Every structure is written in structure tokens, then in C-alpha cells.
């Protein structure tokens, strides 16, 4: 029997990504144009897209391969981030781009797709990555149709990438999973959460588990509270009808922000392998205290923006946005306090907030440490200010630590100062976008940054009482002005614990 390959060299060899066909359902949609095709082009630019890969787009619009290539060329030119567009490379890339039009409910479409895939089987070894960039209501039926058409199995691997939302609540998430798992085994289902693909979020793991000085402080003895903010200054930008059905809690907290929280609070895994890391994330999510419905008003705040004025411009309120009902009860802002009931975090509040039309665009995580036990300076003032560690995710990327320093001059007057690490200045190279990372991972079969069904279940369980309470009560909305930091009730929620939002 043969042993391990003696020629492998983990230090120097690139991860081997096998060639495959990438089938994008919803190939004319916004996500495909803004993120998927530009990311695949960028992978090709960096020679990280394996030779032999083909991309097959599908949507109902009748288009030829050439038409589709032209459309995607325009999209790549428009949405390529921090990279040059190279005509020559595009020509090569475009030759691997194909289009199969068809209705997702039409059996004939799947036959045509099968035929197309078979023509490339020699170069892709039969490997296929299906990407569902379509309406969530179609996820299960498309998976089933792929199964019926014999496209879920074949000579190579068959993987299914699903965009959030994974269900509208715990029951629908489970129902979706039941239907998908009849066709694709769990290990071949890749639930994408692009927040986990962000370099700065991945860096949280490196920061915590590759540095000896922080982890000893990373617990209830030293951490006073954690704030996670994902604020957007824009409104719903023409997606009012969609957003009306979803809302901030479903759109951001249930998936992205609870995953970020899990990354911040999880235990270290013994090894850095997909299931080991995901086990720890899942364990953390399962440890989140589930609120009783009666407790929700104390621990969660729903908000909706009304009209406002920013930079001399009048901004419409959510209810004035196109496609939004004038009495919509949608949460364009959501804030919640979560507790993790384990030995490391018992009693430490994790405050999460997200919203649209807030004062500015910022995503960060702030870890507030306990104050020094005794204030020997500034006795007459308000005591020592706590140390604050801020992990900046966007638009700035980096880490800063706030601590106290003596002001120059006589006496012992202190002032908080900040020590900053800026991603851009330490690593001159461009950081890959989340979709580049995640698409390459899916092709390589690395699910570390993808969400598993038990994680989806646990995060739905954490937010479901809040959703139920909000759905069963009528709120006096709107309750915050466009361009502000959100509703006053959110400040009150923290004030009850003696805390306040860091940016407010």
C-alpha cells in the first residue's frame, strides 16, 4: 500500500484547487454582476482559477454565450475592486464563460444543462459547483430538480453553494435543509456567509489564537462587555420591496453578526480544520441564552428610519421608499443584547446593532475591558477609563487599542490614547475580497468559513423569540431620523447595564 506523497511541500506549494464547472443560477442578477464574476475574474488574474474551469450562467433571459460575455465584461469593468482590468486576460477568461438560458421549473432546462456539463467533463473531471444566486424560495426546488435530472451526482464531486437567508425562521430553515439534504449530503452543501470570508474577520482567529498576550484576558474576569456594530449610511437603495419582507434582524444579525460574535467568543479548536473550527463556532452559538418572549423588550430594540437631513440633502424615510407599504413595520434597525452561558463568558453582555441610514458606514467589534480596580489618578474626576480593543472591519481595516497615558507637563493628568494597527500599512498587497476567498475555498473543498446546518439552527433559535415578539406587536415607527445613530431605546437598553454605545 502506498504511503503519503513524499513530494508534497506545505510551505511552498499552492493549495491544489481542482478544475470544475461553476454553474451560477441567477447569472443576470446583481450579486453575479457585482461580486461573483468579478471575483472569478480576479482569481483568474492571480492565476488561482485552475486551468480547465468553466463558468456556466443561467437565467430566464435568452442570451447567447457572446451576449452573456459582453454583459459580464461590462460588469467586471464596473465592479472590479482595487484591480486593473486587462483586456487580454479578459479574452482568455471569457472563453471559459458560457450561458444556458432556461426556466428553473422547466425539465428541459436541466437536460440542456446536463448536456452542456457533459461536453466539459474531460476538462473538469466531472466536478461541478452549483451556485444558487436566486430567490431563496427557489433553493429547495432547484436542488430537487438537480437531483431528479441526475445532476447532483456524477464522475466528480457536486457541491451546492447557498446564499443567505437560510430560511425565514427556525422551521423554514429546517424544512429547507430537509429538502436539500435529500439531494446533497451536508458535506457538499456550502452555506455562504460573506462576512466570514472577510480578511479582517478571519484575522480575529489569528489575533486570538496566534498571540499569547490576548487570550488570557479573553474572558469574563477581564472583559466587561462586547459591542458589535454594522452600520450603513445608505438606505434600502431600491430594494425596499425585498427588505420589507426581511428586516435588519433577519438580514444581518441572524447570520453575519452572530457568526462574527461566534468568532470573537468561540473556544480555540484543537486543529485548524473545517469541522474542528465549525464545531467550536456551533458550540458557542448553542450557548447563547434564549430570551423568553416577555424578556425581549428589555434586550432587543426594533427601529425604522424616518425622513432626515444629511449634508444638506433631504433623505426619505423608509416608508417613503419605492415599494414599501406606508404602514410597514419592518425593522431597518435592530439591536440586541446576548449572553453566552458558558464559563468563559457568563454575565458578559454582547451588544449587537445594525441598521440602515445611520450616521456613517462602519463595521467594528469593540471589546471593553474592566477598569483598573482603583483610581489613584484623577481622583476627583470620573475615574479611570476602561481599555478598549477595537477590531475594525470596514471601511477601515485594522485593530486599535485604547489605553491611558499621562499628558505632558506638570501633575498627573491622564488622557486616553490609541495604538493603531492598520492592515494596509503592514501588508502592502491587496486583500482578496470575501467572495474570492469563499469561491476558492468551495472549489478546494474547504468549508471552514462556511456555515453548517447546526450553526444555522442555533442562530435562528437565538433570534426567534425576538422575531416572534416583534411580529406579534405593533410598534410606533419610524423611531429614528435618517442620519442619526438609531432609536433612543437602543441607548436605554445599554444604559440599563451602565453602558453606552461607543459610537453614538
Amino acid at each position: 500500500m502506498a504511503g503519503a506523497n513524499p513530494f508534497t511541500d506545505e510551505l511552498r506549494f499552492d493549495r491544489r484547487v481542482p478544475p470544475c464547472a461553476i454553474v451560477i443560477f441567477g447569472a443576470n442578477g446583481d450579486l453575479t454582476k457585482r461580486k461573483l464574476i468579478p471575483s472569478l475574474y480576479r482569481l483568474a488574474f492571480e492565476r488561482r482559477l485552475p486551468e480547465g474551469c468553466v463558468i456556466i450562467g443561467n437565467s430566464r433571459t435568452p442570451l447567447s454565450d457572446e451576449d452573456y460575455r459582453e454583459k459580464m465584461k461590462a460588469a467586471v469593468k464596473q465592479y472590479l475592486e482595487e484591480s486593473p482590468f486587462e483586456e487580454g486576460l479578459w479574452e482568455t477568461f471569457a472563453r471559459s464563460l458560457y450561458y444556458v438560458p432556461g426556466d428553473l421549473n422547466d425539465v428541459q432546462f436541466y437536460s440542456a444543462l446536463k448536456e452542456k456539463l457533459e461536453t466539459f467533463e474531460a476538462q473538469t473531471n466531472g466536478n461541478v459547483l452549483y451556485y444558487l444566486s436566486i430567490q431563496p424560495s427557489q433553493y429547495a426546488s432547484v436542488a430537487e430538480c438537480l437531483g431528479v435530472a441526475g445532476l447532483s451526482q456524477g464522475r466528480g464531486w457536486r457541491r451546492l453553494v447557498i446564499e443567505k437567508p437560510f430560511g425565514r425562521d427556525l422551521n423554514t430553515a429546517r424544512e429547507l435543509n430537509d429538502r436539500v439534504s435529500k439531494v446533497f449530503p451536508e458535506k457538499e452543501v456550502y452555506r455562504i456567509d460573506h462576512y466570514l470570508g472577510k480578511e479582517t474577520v478571519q484575522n480575529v482567529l489569528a489575533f486570538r489564537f496566534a498571540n499569547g498576550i490576548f487570550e488570557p484576558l479573553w474572558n469574563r474576569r477581564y472583559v466587561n462587555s462586547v459591542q458589535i456594530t454594522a452600520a450603513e449610511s445608505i438606505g434600502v437603495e431600491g430594494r425596499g420591496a425585498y427588505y420589507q419582507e426581511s428586516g435588519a434582524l433577519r438580514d444581518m444579525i441572524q447570520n453575519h453578526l452572530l457568526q462574527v460574535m461566534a468568532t470573537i467568543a468561540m473556544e480555540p479548536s484543537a486543529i485548524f480544520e473545517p469541522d474542528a473550527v465549525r464545531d467550536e463556532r456551533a458550540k458557542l452559538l448553542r450557548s447563547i441564552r434564549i430570551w423568553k418572549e416577555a424578556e425581549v423588550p428589555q434586550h432587543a430594540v426594533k427601529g425604522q428610519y424616518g425622513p432626515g437631513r444629511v449634508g444638506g440633502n433631504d433623505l426619505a424615510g423608509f416608508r417613503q421608499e419605492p415599494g414599501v407599504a406606508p404602514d410597514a413595520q419592518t425593522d431597518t434597525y435592530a439591536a440586541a443584547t446576548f449572553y453566552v452561558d458558558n464559563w468563559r463568558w457568563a454575565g458578559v453582555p454582547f451588544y449587537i446593532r445594525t441598521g440602515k441610514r445611520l450616521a456613517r458606514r462602519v463595521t467594528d467589534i469593540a471589546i471593553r475591558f474592566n477598569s483598573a480596580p482603583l483610581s489613584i489618578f484623577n481622583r476627583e474626576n470620573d475615574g479611570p477609563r476602561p481599555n478598549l480593543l477595537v477590531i475594525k472591519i470596514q471601511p477601515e481595516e485594522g485593530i486599535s487599542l485604547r489605553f491611558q497615558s499621562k499628558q505632558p507637563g506638570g501633575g498627573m493628568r491622564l488622557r486616553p490614547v490609541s495604538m493603531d494597527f492598520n492592515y494596509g500599512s503592514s501588508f502592502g498587497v491587496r486583500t482578496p475580497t470575501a467572495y474570492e476567498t469563499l469561491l476558492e475555498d468551495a472549489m478546494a473543498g474547504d468549508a471552514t468559513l462556511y456555515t453548517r446546518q447546526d450553526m444555522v439552527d442555533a442562530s435562528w433559535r437565538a433570534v426567534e423569540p425576538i422575531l416572534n415578539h416583534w411580529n406579534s406587536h405593533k410598534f410606533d415607527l419610524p423611531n429614528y431620523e435618517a442620519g442619526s445613530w438609531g432609536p433612543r431605546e437602543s441607548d436605554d437598553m445599554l444604559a440599563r447595564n451602565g453602558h453606552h454605545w461607543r459610537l453614538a
Partner: protein
Amino acid sequence: MIAGTPEQILKELSRVWASLGKEEGGGVLRACTMTLILAADVEEEVDLGELVAGLMHDHPSRAIVLRVRDGQEELLESRVFAQCWMPLGKQQQLCCEQIEITASEGSLVDVPRLVVGLMAPDLPVVLVCRTPALFGLNDFKPLVPIAGRTIVDSRRSSNPGVTLHQLQSLRESGHDVRDLAWTALTGWRQRIASAFEPIDVLAKIKDVELVRIQGSEPKMWYLASWLRRGFGKGVDVRFSPGQGIDSVEILGDGIKLEFARTSTCTELPDIDLLRQELGFTGRDRVFEEVLPGALELGRH
């Protein structure tokens, strides 16, 4: 040109930063992740400036460029400047600092002490020696222990066997050494390693009897030593002259693999090889195991 004490040079650097701050309205971002010492003699220094500028984008550093001149007359000069560029899509320039030291062989004795005073504190120090012959100069050798890692390019050596011997001596005394001749083989090695991925091919490893390599020294020594590390030392190795690596044949009972040069194993430009090499952290255990075998093959 400024005189050669660390204090004077660092003062001049501060002045450069201060003036940059004024010119750009304080809008430049100072970046430094290591001290990068690049040493070359007059023949190899032609594209040194371009090389440094290209490396800064991926590995922002305090670059100390050492130009060594022939002769025993006293010559030790330095000048400082900043390398700035605007990253694509950003609105703030990134700047790195560069210190150029020109020293005659006669003044080389003063350089290590000067460099020690100029290193960016608490950051890694890497020495890139473009001219392998500099290792033959006694006054150059003290620079090696200053650096945590030394990168040489034995392809540039007029006597690669001597350079490999010097590398092996440094390694044996505990230094982390690298050779761009080895870095340049990654494409070839990856291709050969992939050929042994199928289980039926992997099972034939024990049956390999002969390896034929067409290429040039020292790359073919490294490649042969690496192959012997996988097949076992008993495997017969035969070389024929060529350029870089032209072809590899692996032969044995029931196995015959032939590799010709393709785009995946075309030799990368020096700057890309250096970029790669600076990106690896930690010791390169495979290289360290391969080096003695390559040296031995070179002796024969």
C-alpha cells in the same frame, strides 16, 4: 550624501518624514514590516533600485541597500529617501524608507555596526545577497548573524558549488538560509508532486531506478537531491547540460514519467522569486534537508 553614523542617518530620515508630512498634508502612511538589507557589488547593483521599489508593495520595509565597491580606499557614504506609491483604489499614499550605503571593500568592516544601529526595532531582519561572492569577504560575514534570514541567489554565482558550501556552513551554524535557485524550482516540484497524487503512481515510487535531468547548475543539483529525498538515495541520477531545467525523466520498473518545460514551470523574474521568499515565515525544512544532497551532487 551624509556621513555614516546611525544617529545622523536616522536624523536625516526623520527630516524626510517631516517634509513628506508637510508636502502631503500629513496624508502619507508610513509602512514597515521588516528591515530588508540588500547587498550587491557594482556588477549586480544595476537594477537594485527597481528591485527594492517593486518589493516594497508586497513587503513594506525599511530597506537598507548596500552597494559594495572594489578597492581598499576609505569610502562609506549614505543617503536616505522614501519610496511612496498610491495603492490602487486608495486615497492615501504608502511610504517606506530606504537607506543607501555605499562602501568600499576597505570600509566594509564598519558596515555591520552601522546596520545594527539602523534596524527597525522588534521587526524581522532579512539579508538578501545579490552577489554570492560577497560571502568570501571576511568583513561582510558579520552581517549574516544580524539578519534572522539570509537569502542568496546561487544562480548568480560563478562557482555555485562554493556558494552551496557557504550556505551549508551557515545552516550548520544555525542560520536560516535560502537560495533563489531553490525558490525557482517550485513550479517544477509542484508539477512532479502532482504526478504522484494518483494512488497507482504513488505506489510505484519504490520502483524508480533512474532520474534524468537536463538543465544547468545549481538548479539541477537541488532538483535531483529533492527527488532522491522522495525516491531514496539509491536512485541513479544523470545530468545533461541545458538552461535552468529543460526536462526531467523518471524511470523504473513499470513507471516512466517525462516532464518538459511548460508555462507553469517557467522561471519567474527575480523580483517575483524574492517576493515569494519574503512571504514565507518559519524555517524551510525541505530545503534544509535537500541542501546537503545538492552540495554532494555538485561535488561529483
